[in-house]
């Protein structure tokens, strides 16, 4: 008899790079990221393939990871996924796992909270310029993560507000270090009756997260 030889080759598994994505807590958001791979052997990844799902879409704590385009995983490359989630207000960092062709991939979720602002009230006398300091704002801003507050911006009515000697442009971000150099000044109207100037503001932390309300 002749031998029947069955040759079993060591087929390479696809390797999936670990990915990271960041979200703001309490904010319903969708982000698109590219995930790297290697050792692809021509697997087809159809658009709309759900790689991971948790909870009911648009409800608290749900996560959904879906491919966005048809991709042939050949050799080395990337594929794109859309990640949607609504983290709760105290969501801790976490990792999720998904599977492609028997290989487990991991996506690390990191969370940050936006600064929380409160009303800022300052006082001056008529015909007396008011020079803002960072303390004027910092006394009314907290950050749940303890992140440093780096900037503020003013909106709605910026009449009479000057930055570094020129009229302040609505919505321009101002570094807190500039506030402490006395660059932000309010010049009151030249009138005798008392009045209130009302504007609104936002704060931003060093991670670039803006206050939400």
């Amino acid at each position, binding site marked *: 008899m002749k031998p029947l030889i069955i040759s079993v080759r060591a087929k390479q598994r696809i390797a999936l790079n670990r990915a990271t994505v960041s979200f703001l807590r309490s904010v319903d958001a969708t982000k698109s990221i590219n995930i790297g791979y290697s050792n692809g052997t021509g697997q087809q990844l159809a658009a709309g393939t759900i790689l991971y799902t948790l909870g009911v879409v648009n409800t608290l704590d749900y996560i959904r990871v879906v491919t966005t385009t048809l991709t042939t995983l050949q050799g080395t490359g990337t594929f794109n996924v859309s990640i949607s989630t609504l983290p709760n207000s105290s969501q801790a960092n976490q990792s999720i796992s998904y599977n492609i062709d028997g290989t487990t991939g991991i996506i690390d979720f990191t969370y940050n909270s936006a600064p929380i602002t409160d009303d800022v009230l300052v006082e001056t006398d*008529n015909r007396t310029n008011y020079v803002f300091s960072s303390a004027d704002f910092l006394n009314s801003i907290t950050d749940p993560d303890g992140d440093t507050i780096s900037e503020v911006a003013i909106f709605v009515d910026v009449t009479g507000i000057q930055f570094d000697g020129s009229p302040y442009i609505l919505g321009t971000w101002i570094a807190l270090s500039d506030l402490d150099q006395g660059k932000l000044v*309010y010049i009151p109207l030249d009138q005798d009756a008392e009045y209130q*100037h009302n504007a609104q503001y936002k704060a931003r932390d060093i991670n670039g997260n803006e*206050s939400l309300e």
Partner: protein
Amino acid sequence: MKELIINVKAKTDFSCGAGFDYVSDDAIYPLTKYIELSNAVGYVLVDVINNTNAPLKVKGYIENSIVFDSGYVGDDNRQLALDDFNTNNNYPLETITYSPVGTTNIYSFYKNVTANQVLKLECYAPLSVIEDSPNGFEIFIHCPDPNI
């Protein structure tokens, strides 16, 4: 977004029903006082006594609108000195209305709103008092009174 509120207070030097003395020799030109007039409606009287031989001009403003201007009042023998001063400072020439030393001149305007307005009072007395002329100026601001 949260509010950024800038409260601008109406800073005053004193409230109506009071006055102040003023000596032209140490005059700031003009000396400016801010007087709180209360919420009352009525005539506001400003008494000005010039105890010197230097002319004095008093101007009153509310919200940057002039409510009275006395012009220069006092010893008109100082007209040439006042002309020199105005000429040297590129101010327009003004005639002194004669008023004997010690006369009380009363100026008035009608405050017709209930808001607590502030009277801005400017006092112009650029000339020095000559020799033995006594004291300075006495200025008193009455509160609004509808029954005058």
